[in-house]
């Protein structure tokens, strides 16, 4: 190299002129012990989870809260995103002391005797003691899996937040009757967040014996709440990793820190005959790319094809768009999903970007307080297979 040529210019020339790998002398990396000390490249485990014929998702509610500004105001006012969710003084754990001064014990003490059957009475107390009770909505979905035999099996994914709102939504979609009739065989919690979990007594009111699957990482208050709500059925804590449930259906628990002192998220995977992989998420805090990549490395599925995805994809939950989200929008295209139903924490803006990007987004009806047709909203359904 001549003295008046800096290395960068020279390297650029070398890189663009002839590409990498034409070193005359063997280079540093070639000699490096790291050369031999290969990281085990992510080998595909291709676990066989069986196969199902179809999956239908009914959106019971995706409106976890009704106003972003109110929710963010509460979070800010209570001390920020790291604050324990049970301390915000949100419903149902209102103790009357105001924002950020809540406590699980004080809140539950006021309503425990009414759970799970006298929810109207409980809600009156909650409403009087909690911060912004009317902003609470909830996230819940009914997942119907058709087995290869044609037999259909039903599962709940999450139960929402507000007792009042969730009870209305459950009744609207006939979930109350399904629970009473024991048609729904299990309830999966995606994670411990208020808007997915705290509406639990609504489900237990109709079926206190339902089997519950929670991801590893629930905090003591959450575990106690399940008891305090009057749960009498089996409680299964799912360890991090893949957990087959029935033929063609598995859950996967991701170890991931989440705001408001929550840890771990459980998502659902389905292998739909002749179609491919279908993914159903609550919030997808693990990120859609990790979600899809995990499927790729862990599970064997039809046609080696990512077929469909449903749920909150957690890209711009408060529509606070950041350019990095564009990467996610573009990256999602790599997986070739054929049916996308998104809502909740996906962000309306993101859903619209999916549509603009030409992705096969199944649009909704914008009913029952869902904001936009870009969302597969409250009361809407999507079928895979």
């Amino acid at each position, binding site marked *: 190299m001549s003295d008046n040529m800096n290395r960068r210019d020279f390297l650029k020339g070398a890189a663009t002129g002839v*590409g990498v790998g034409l070193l005359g002398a063997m280079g540093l990396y070639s000699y490096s012990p790291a050369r031999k000390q290969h990281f*085990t490249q992510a080998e595909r485990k291709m676990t066989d989870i069986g196969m199902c014929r179809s999956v239908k998702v009914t959106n019971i509610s995706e409106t976890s809260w009704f106003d972003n500004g109110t929710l963010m105001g509460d979070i800010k006012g209570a001390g920020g995103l790291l604050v324990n969710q049970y301390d915000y003084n949100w419903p149902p754990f209102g103790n009357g002391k105001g924002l950020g001064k809540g406590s699980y014990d004080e809140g539950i003490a006021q309503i425990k005797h009414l759970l799970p059957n006298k929810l109207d009475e409980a809600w009156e107390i909650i409403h009087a003691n909690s911060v912004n009770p009317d902003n609470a909505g909830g996230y819940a979905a009914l997942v119907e899996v058709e087995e290869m035999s044609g037999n259909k099996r039903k599962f709940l994914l999450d139960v929402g937040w507000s007792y009042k709102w969730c009870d209305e939504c459950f009744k609207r979609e006939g979930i109350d009757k399904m629970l009473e009739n024991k048609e729904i065989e299990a309830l999966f919690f995606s994670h411990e967040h208020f808007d997915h979990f705290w509406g639990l007594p609504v489900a237990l009111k109709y079926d206190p014996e339902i089997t519950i699957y929670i991801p590893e990482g629930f905090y003591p208050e959450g575990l106690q709440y399940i008891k305090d709500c009057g749960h009498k059925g089996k409680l299964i804590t799912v360890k991090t990793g893949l957990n087959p449930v029935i033929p063609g259906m598995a859950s996967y628990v991701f170890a991931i820190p989440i705001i408001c002192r929550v840890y771990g998220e459980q998502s659902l995977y389905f292998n739909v005959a002749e179609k491919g992989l279908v993914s159903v998420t609550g919030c997808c805090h693990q990120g859609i790319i990790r979600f899809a990549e995990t499927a790729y490395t862990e599970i064997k599925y039809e046609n080696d094809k990512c077929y469909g995805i449903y749920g909150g994809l957690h890209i711009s939950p408060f*529509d606070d*768009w950041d350019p990095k989200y564009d990467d996610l929008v573009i990256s999602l295209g790599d997986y070739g999903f054929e049916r996308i139903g998104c809502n909740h924490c996906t962000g309306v803006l993101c859903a619209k970007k999916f549509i603009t990007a030409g992705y096969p987004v199944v649009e909704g009806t914008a009913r029952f307080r869902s904001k936009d047709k870009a969302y597969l909203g409250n009361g809407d359904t999507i079928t895979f297979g």
Partner: protein
Amino acid sequence: MHGRLNTLLPPALLDNPVQAAVELPRALITRANFIPGVRHRLGWRGVRDCAKGKGGLTAKVTGMTGVFGLYLLNAMDQGGAGLATMGIVYFPDPEEELVESFSIEAGIAAQAPDYLDRVREFTLYDDLRSLFTVAVVEIHFSPEGPGVSLALTAPERDTVTALDGVTVTTQNGPVQAVAPGGTDQDLPALDTALPFFESLAASASYCMGHGPQSLSRSSRPGMRRVYGGDAGMKSEPAPDGRDVRFGLGWNMAVPDNPDMSVPDLAWNAPDPLPAEFDGAPWLTGDIPGAANSLDKRTMGITEKPRLILLTGFLGSGKTTFLARFIEEQAGRNGFVAVVQNEIGQKGLDGKLLGQHYAVTEVDEGCVCCTLAGSLRAALTGILSEFQPDFVVLETTGLANPANLLSEIADLDDMLEFASVTTVLDAACGLRALTDHEVARSQVRLADILLLNKTDLADGDALGELETRIRDLNPTADIHRTTHGNVPSTALYGVNFRKRLNRPAPFLPPMGGHHATHEDDSIQSALIDFESPLDRQSFRDGVAGLPDDVLRAKGVVRFTDAAAPEVFQYVPGHHDLTPAEDAGDCFVVIIGRNAERIAGAFRSAVGA
């Protein structure tokens, strides 16, 4: 302490010290990055999970233009405590000077077109980790206490000698990049890794609510790598080099490393911390104001948002430009509020941009005639809720910005006026300018002109259009764009301090004689200033400008200041802000009877 760690990791993880140690850095970084104000204070400028491969994360940190990566090397139980060891990699920006300190092979990798794509998923690429790893960090988690410690180990200089030299084949034949026995790499590894480590440690202090209570620094004689010849690669003592281990502990002392035999420093609270750490980012967990909120006012940021008046004829691409501008600003931690008004497609654009991007629509019909009062009301709401860095007032394509300027002047208690930015469709612009006075006004009053959709116009038409634009507005910066794609720094300068464009010398100042301007008799007139002006005389002259002046702007130099200043005037209001660089001083006056007013102004300011 326990409560704080409990917020970081759930009981199930805290019961497993090894897993807790493995998860801790990600939990610390993720938690610290939830809150923009905190993220900023702790030095993070973006964090990304490497979703593919074996996991890891990349992050940008204040003061470093490249990208850091963190990946797990191994994890073990150490007498009941968890220890995770992770590699810190630094991927320099291809243009960064530090590239030259890395090996030739690393440098070539950094110049390759797919470099940044590979960096994003660097855990998939052995060569990247090998070539760019600069340090190792140990994470200790002790269930006793419980306590956490972080220790960074890196050579002060990481040198590599190529016994055979390095020859690179280029298009011009082989080039000896490193002479035999020469130094292939000479990297200040410790200093390179330190900014990342300090942000990590600061995040630990923040997440735990207090600074570390113990600190240790030790070293050992360094080694260098030598490769080539028959030796393959081997390590040998580096006579002048040291490996340094720097550790911080929260509720636990940093465990010793027996290899590090030379103690340098040991500190434990409550002894006074050595002065060399004054101002270290990890000193305290207390982040005043920023911890709870996105509210800039609590962080002591009180400057007024800058106002961009965005105009352009119907269909010129204003919204496209705006969307891109918003995203660019968001990437710089800037927040843009938008006030919109559209005839006929009311609300549509607002929704496209996402309602929560602080978009307020002033649905009062045409923004140029019925805005009075409603704009202030809209802005009051938006400013109190969002504390934006920029407010973009996007006018309907049929608005004449001239009518808005006095309205904007009344908002000077809330906003700092920055620019009239006009978007013009390169293909249809000429026709709009010929047929519509509004389009001509938009061009005349522009500080910045975006000639958009240039991909749809041929070269001759573009030239003709630019001539016509120059005819209407000799001073505006013209930028040719497609899809409104142009960096905001090119438009407005760093911190919106770009100097105004000097009118091109070959264009005569416009006068009322020009046929195309007679319809509304708006003209512009140019005043040159050869020498610095008296500030008070200038102010008096500005105060005496008559109502006919719609707009004035320029660069002026005063006798009481060394640096030139940008002058912006709209009726009833003017301001002077520092100019980014020196150059000619001038003022352009736009309005009716511009030449006559310019003459009077020149006399008034004593030029």
